[in-house]
C-alpha cells in the first residue's frame, strides 16, 4: 500500500503552500483532482492584501488597520486573534512570493504596486495586473517543481479513513489509471477549495464541487458557519465570470437602468468600494425594485478608468468582455449581476489549522478558522490561502515530530477501498437510473432559489424538503459509461453525495440563524443580534442527521459596533 507521512489534498495556493512548508525529510505527497495549475486559485484576479504602505495614500497603513478592516468587514464574526495572525503575517508572505518570482506589478519606485479594494481603509491590495491568482499559483507550482515535490495529479480523493478519532488513510480514484487506490497517511492537510458549484450562478470553476468539505464532515470533522456564502457583486451577466473588484478599485462605477449611481443610497461614504455583502445586496435590491436592465443586471461602467489604465491594469477583464460578451469596456458598460463566489464557512479548524480529528488539518477556502467571519474582504482569500496553507504544513509537521500518526490503519484503509469498489460495482451493475449530471443541475437550481442573497424561513424550509427528494433520487444513480479511465460520471457521483450534505448544512444553518449578519440576510430577521448570535454555527454529522451547536466568537480589542460604510 502506498504510504506517506503527510498527504496534502488539493494543489491550489493553500495546498502548495502547505507542501512547501512541510519539514524536509518527511515523505510528502500532493493529491490533486486536476493538474495543480488548473486549480481555481488561478482565477483570482484583483490581488492579495498586505499593509506594505507602498502606495502614496497608504503610507500610514499598518497590519493592525488591516486587521480592523477584516474584523469590521466580517460583521464581527471573525475570531479576532486569528484575523490578527493573518494580517501580521501578510507583508512577509507577499515578500516571500516576490522572492520566489511572483511578477507583481510595480510602482515607479520599483516597489510592489497596491490598489484600493472594498472595505479597506487604504490602497492595500498587491496585484499583478488582473491576473494575481494566476501568477501566484504558477509561482508556487514553480517552487514545488524546484523542490521536486511528489504529485498525484488527476487523482480524486473519495474517502477519509479515521480510526478512533485519528486519521489513518485516504482512498483515491486515479482517473488515468482507472483504479481505486488505498493510501496510508499519518497526517493530511485538506486544501480542497470551495463548493461554488452547489449554486447555479457562480463565479467558480466547474470543478468546485466542494467534495473535500463533505468528506471531512462524513469523517467526523464538524463544519462551521456554512450559512455564510459570499455573493460577488460583479459577475458578467449570463456567464457569471468574475469581474474583479479591482475594476471598481481603479474607478469603475455601478449604474442602474435609470442612469443613477445607486450606491449613494446604500453606502454614501464608500460607494462602490463598500464590502461585497453590501454591494451585492444593493445591486440585487435595485434589480428587484425594477431598476435593472431586463430585470437581470446593472452596469459596471469603466469609462472613468480610461483606456490606458484598462489596458495596463485590467487587460484580462477587457479580454473576458471582448471574448465572452462581445463588448469593449473601454467604451461600453459591462452588464453585471451578483453570483456565488466564496465560502466563508468550512471545515472547523483552529488557528493552527488543526481539527477535532488527530492528524487532520485544513487550510484555504475549504477551511473555516474563522478569519472572514460573516463576510470576506476582497484580497484576503489569496492571503489566507498562502498564510494558513503554510501554517497547516508546519502544524502537520509538528504533529508528526511529536509522535502523532502512529496508529495502525492499513486494515481500515483497505476496507474503505473495498467498500467504495463494491459500491461502484453495484452502481455499474444497474441497467438504468438517474443521471448524476442532471441531479447536480437540479441541486444548483434548488440552492440558488432557496439560499441566495436574500433568505427567509419559508424558502429555506422548502429547500430542505426538496433536498430530501434529491437525496432519494441519488440512491438510484446510474453510470452510463463503461470505461473506468477518466470516468467523470464517477467523479461527480462521488462528490455529489458530499454536496447533498453541504447543501443541507448551509440550509439548516441559515434557517436556524434568526438574524442578519454579513452575507447572511434574513428578510424576516433584518437586524444583527449580538446578544443571541455573536457565535459560530457548528454542525456535526451523526447517525440521526446533522447536530447543530454554537461556539462563542473570540472577541479581542475591537468591540462589535454597527457597520457603517
Amino acid at each position, binding site marked *: 500500500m502506498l504510504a506517506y507521512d503527510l498527504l496534502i489534498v488539493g494543489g491550489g495556493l493553500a495546498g502548495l503552500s502547505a507542501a512547501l512548508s512541510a519539514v524536509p525529510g518527511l515523505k510528502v505527497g500532493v493529491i490533486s483532482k486536476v493538474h495543480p495549475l488548473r486549480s481555481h486559485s488561478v482565477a483570482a484576479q484583483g490581488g492579495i492584501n498586505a499593509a506594505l504602505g507602498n502606495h502614496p495614500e497608504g503610507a500610514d497603513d499598518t497590519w493592525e488597520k488591516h486587521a480592523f478592516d477584516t474584523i469590521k468587514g466580517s460583521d464581527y464574526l471573525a475570531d479576532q486573534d486569528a484575523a490578527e495572525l493573518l494580517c501580521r503575517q501578510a507583508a512577509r508572505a507577499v515578500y516571500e512570493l516576490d522572492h520566489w*518570482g511572483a511578477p507583481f506589478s510595480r510602482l515607479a519606485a520599483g516597489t510592489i504596486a497596491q490598489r484600493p479594494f472594498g472595505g479597506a481603509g487604504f490602497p492595500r491590495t498587491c496585484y499583478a495586473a488582473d491576473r494575481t491568482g494566476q501568477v501566484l499559483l504558477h509561482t508556487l507550482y514553480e517552487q514545488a517543481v524546484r523542490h521536486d515535490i511528489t504529485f498525484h495529479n488527476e487523482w480524486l480523493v473519495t474517502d477519509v479513513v479515521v480510526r478512533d478519532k485519528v486519521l489513518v488513510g485516504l482512498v483515491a480514484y486515479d482517473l488515468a489509471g482507472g483504479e481505486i487506490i488505498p493510501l496510508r497517511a499519518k497526517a493530511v492537510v485538506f486544501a480542497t477549495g470551495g463548493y461554488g458549484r452547489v449554486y447555479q450562478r457562480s463565479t467558480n470553476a466547474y*470543478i468546485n464541487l466542494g467534495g473535500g468539505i463533505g468528506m471531512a464532515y462524513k469523517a467526523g470533522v464538524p463544519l462551521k458557519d456554512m450559512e455564510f456564502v459570499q455573493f460577488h457583486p460583479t459577475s458578467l451577466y449570463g456567464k457569471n465570470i468574475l469581474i474583479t473588484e479591482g475594476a471598481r478599485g481603479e474607478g469603475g462605477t455601478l449604474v442602474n437602468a435609470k442612469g443613477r449611481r445607486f450606491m449613494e443610497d446604500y453606502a454614501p461614504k464608500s460607494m462602490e468600494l463598500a464590502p461585497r455583502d453590501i454591494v451585492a445586496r444593493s445591486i440585487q435590491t435595485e434589480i428587484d425594485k425594477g431598476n435593472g436592465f431586463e430585470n437581470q443586471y446593472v452596469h459596471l461602467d469603466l469609462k472613468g478608468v480610461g483606456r490606458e489604465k484598462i489596458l495596463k491594469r485590467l487587460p484580462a477583464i477587457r479580454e473576458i468582455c471582448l471574448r465572452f460578451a462581445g463588448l469593449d469596456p473601454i467604451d461600453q458598460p459591462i452588464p453585471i449581476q451578483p453570483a456565488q463566489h466564496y465560502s466563508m464557512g468550512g471545515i472547523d479548524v483552529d488557528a493552527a489549522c488543526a481539527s477535532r480529528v488527530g492528524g487532520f488539518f485544513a487550510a484555504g477556502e475549504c477551511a473555516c478558522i474563522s478569519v472572514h467571519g460573516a463576510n470576506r474582504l476582497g484580497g484576503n482569500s489569496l492571503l489566507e490561502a498562502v498564510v494558513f496553507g503554510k501554517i497547516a504544513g508546519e502544524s502537520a509537521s509538528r504533529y508528526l515530530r511529536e509522535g502523532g500518526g502512529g496508529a495502525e490503519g492499513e486494515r481500515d484503509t483497505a476496507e474503505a477501498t473495498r467498500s467504495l469498489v463494491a459500491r461502484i460495482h453495484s452502481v455499474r451493475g444497474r441497467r438504468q437510473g438517474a443521471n448524476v449530471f442532471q441531479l447536480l443541475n437540479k441541486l444548483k437550481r434548488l440552492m440558488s432559489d432557496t439560499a441566495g442573497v436574500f433568505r427567509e424561513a419559508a424558502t429555506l424550509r422548502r429547500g430542505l424538503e426538496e433536498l430530501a427528494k434529491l437525496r432519494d433520487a441519488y440512491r438510484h444513480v446510474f453510470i*452510463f459509461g463503461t470505461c473506468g479511465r477518466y470516468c467523470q460520471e464517477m467523479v461527480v457521483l462521488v462528490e455529489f453525495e458530499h454536496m447533498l450534505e453541504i447543501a443541507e448544512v448551509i440550509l439548516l444553518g441559515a434557517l436556524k440563524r434568526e438574524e442578519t449578519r454579513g452575507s447572511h440576510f434574513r428578510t424576516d430577521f433584518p437586524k444583527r443580534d449580538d446578544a443571541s448570535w455573536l457565535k459560530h454555527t457548528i454542525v456535526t454529522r451523526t447517525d440521526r442527521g446533522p447536530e447543530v451547536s454554537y461556539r462563542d466568537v473570540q472577541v479581542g480589542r475591537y468591540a462589535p459596533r454597527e457597520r457603517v460604510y
Partner: protein
Amino acid sequence: MTFKILRFNPFKDEGPHFQTYRHEPKPKDSVLEALKDIRDQQDPSISFRYSCREAVCGSCGMVINGRITLACRTLVEGLGSDEVVIEPLPNFEILKDLIVDLKPFWDAYRKLEPFLHASGDVPETGHRVAEKDMDGISRYVTCILCACCTSACPVAARDGRYFGPAALAKLYRFVKDPRDERPASALERVDGPDGVWGCDLVFRCNDVCPKEVRPADGIEGLRRKVIAERSKRLFRRNT
C-alpha cells in the same frame, strides 16, 4: 446543429472514431458549454478536461473545426458553421476521448528549471524592480501552459526531443526577469537543435496561442541571449 466528437475508449475501441450528436446551443454558448450540455443531457460517458471556463486555467485545449484552441473561449456562433467537429490536441497520445497524455509537455517544462533562481534571504522590503522590466515579462507570464502551441508546432510533431514553444518561452520569461540569477550555462542547454535552433520559424505557436503570448518571440529572444553568451565565452577564452 451537428456535433461530431472524437471518441476513444482504449479498453474497447480499436481506434478513435467520431460520434455524432444533435444539439441546439443557447446564444453565446461556448463549445465547452455545448460539450457539457451534450454530456449532461445525451451521453454522460464523454470525457474531456475542463475547469475555469474563462480561459485562464489551460485545461480545455482541443481542435475545433480544424483549429487548435481552448473550447471555453470559442463561441459556437462564432464558428459560422452548422457542423462542429471536435478532436483532441494533436502531437500527444489519446488517453480517452478528448483527453490526451501531456506528460511529454510537462517533462520538457520541468527540464528547463522553470522557477526563479534568486539567492539569499527574502529581502526585508521586497525586491526593487523597474516598472518597465516587469512590464517586459508580463506577456510571457500570461502563459497558462495549455499546450496549444506545442500541439500546433511542426517541429514538436516530428522531433520528440524538441523542448517546444511553451517551455522555451517560459525559460525566456525567467532569463528576462531582473531578479533571476541563474548561471549563464543554463542557456547552453537550449543551444542546440532540441532547443532554440530547432524552431522552424513558421510561427504556428503564435497563431494558436489563446493568450497572445507569442512564444516564438520568446524563442527569438533566447536566440539573441544564446549568441551573446557564446561570444562572451569566446572573448573570455581569447583573453
